[in-house]
């Protein structure tokens, strides 16, 4: 890193921030990579590989490679446990500069940069207020919690008694497509992620039955054919359950309207997994406010791209729900846009 280099602050050390940082560094731009937690990788670093007998291109392994590249790059300076608390932008010799105040623990520091990239990701929806007993019944978990369990231990066991589940229910669209929450968007990644997760568990724990409660399966991406071919492994019920109750023998009873019999139905499961939606993170909201960006749910609730001020860029799931692969692409596009902005400004 030398003083003649152009400088960019990348806010967010998840997969999109890391990708953009690596791409920018490669283009000869100095990067200040700011991460508010104590480690790099973001949500992606907590996901488990979903391979069955073959790779399903879930992208969970991508982030580790990105961390290796970013931490080994002399053009990238990493600030952990840090958050942006203030920004003053001004024009110096017709060149826009951002004077950013970073807070690390209780220490404040000023860093001047030529551009800012918002890569502050998403926050998973917290489902406590939905009628699924989350937070009350131990064996009701979110998809992200299940991912972390699989990643850490290599197996899925019931939190209440460490038994292997014989059957699992997956409830889709929890916190997405929900006007009562102001979340009108489809979170896009949950159907594919949950289906891949269920197939992966079945491979590791043969005999585990998985049932999906869904509105419609929204599965995007190049891997559609593979995922589609795997559908027969699961019981698919086009209905969202309304209640989850605990039985006397510590299982979970779901009640739902069965579309086949056109009747009210109850089924019992060992675990219930909530496919929670993606929402704009607090960091994204704060940054948008600080940078005077019109912020109605950031991009989540909008159809058209956000008009960003000169020198401000955005990438990844801070913009809208995105998979790991899409976040990498989005970061690459942002790095390219920043490079061109630097050349012309």
């Amino acid at each position, binding site marked *: 890193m030398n003083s003649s280099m152009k400088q960019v602050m990348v806010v967010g050390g998840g997969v999109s921030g890391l990708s953009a940082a690596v791409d920018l560094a490669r283009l000869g731009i100095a990067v200040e990579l700011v991460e508010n937690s104590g480690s790099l990788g973001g949500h992606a670093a907590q996901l488990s590989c979903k391979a069955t007998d073959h790779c399903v291109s879930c992208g969970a392994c991508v982030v580790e490679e990105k961390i290796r590249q970013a931490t080994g790059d002399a053009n990238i300076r990493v600030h952990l446990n840090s958050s942006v608390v203030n920004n003053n932008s001004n024009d110096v010799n017709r060149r826009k500069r951002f004077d950013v105040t970073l807070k690390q623990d209780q220490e404040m520091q000023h860093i001047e940069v030529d551009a800012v990239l918002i890569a502050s990701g998403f926050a998973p929806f917290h489902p406590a207020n939905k009628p699924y007993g989350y937070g009350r019944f131990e064996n009701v978990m979110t998809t992200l919690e299940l991912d972390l369990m699989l990643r850490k231990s290599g197996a899925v066991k019931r939190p209440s008694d460490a038994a292997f589940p014989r059957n699992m229910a997956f409830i889709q669209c929890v916190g997405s*497509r*929900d*006007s009562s929450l102001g979340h009108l968007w489809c979170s896009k990644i949950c159907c594919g992620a949950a289906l891949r997760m269920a197939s992966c568990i079945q491979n590791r724990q043969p005999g585990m039955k998985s049932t999906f409660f869904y509105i419609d399966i929204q599965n995007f991406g190049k891997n559609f054919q593979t995922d589609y071919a795997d559908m027969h492994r699961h019981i698919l019920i086009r209905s969202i359950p309304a209640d989850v109750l605990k039985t006397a023998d510590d299982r979970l009873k779901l009640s739902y309207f069965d579309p086949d019999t056109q*009747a009210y139905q109850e089924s019992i499961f060992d675990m219930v997994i909530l496919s929670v939606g993606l929402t704009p993170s607090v960091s994204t909201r704060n940054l948008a406010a600080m940078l005077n960006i019109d912020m109605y749910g950031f991009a989540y609730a909008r159809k058209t791209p956000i008009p960003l001020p000169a020198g401000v860029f955005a990438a990844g799931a801070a913009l809208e729900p995105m998979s790991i692969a899409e976040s990498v692409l989005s970061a690459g596009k942002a790095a390219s846009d920043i490079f061109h902005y630097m050349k012309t400004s």
Partner: protein
Amino acid sequence: MTTNEPISMNLLNQDLFKNWPFDQDHCLTCALCSSSCPISGIDGFDPRKIIRMVSMGLQSELVESRWPWICTMCGKCEHVCPMGIHIPDMMRAIRSLRDRDKVPGILHKGLDAALKTGNNLGLPKEDFVFILEDVADEIRQEPGFEGFAASVDKQGANIMTTIHNKLVNTHTEDLKHWWKIFYAAGEDWTVPSENWEGTNWGMFTGDDPAMKLMSGRIAENMVRLNAKNLLWPE
């Protein structure tokens, strides 16, 4: 629906109910309403089908359908609906479209009686008061309640209660429980001798003027008896 014939979409008037502020066109058919409904599946009922019929403007099918009338209007569907659709309000609006003489018998006759006499049974004032006194008599037979008295038309009471007509018809035993609680708690309460009906079948039949009249009578009783609080246990 009475027919299995395919519906010709271009013959439908989809603007028919668009002024109903119930957001039915936002339905994603996710089935949370159907999954939570206590009567889904009965007579083929599925709340989503009603919502779709409204969006398509199937007026005659809705008016003739039995489904809006077997709905209990408990409101659980609305509570769980992620798209904020006011399903019970919609059911009421559909009920309001039916000719009054085709409203299911007990509701039609009961409301008719209530509008004329002040209660769904058409029970005269003296019979009503007699029944209350009779129940009070029975309460006084129980140990600890020797001093109990029914309180009718008392001025300035802390609580005025309405009465569900079944409590002075087939379920008089059910009056005793809360009256005994009042007595034990030393509550200052009363019941109006006229227009005491708490069950508002104007609400259930989608009859707004009748609902307003019935509610207005309760408000008039509050003013007449100078009661401080209303207990409307419906």
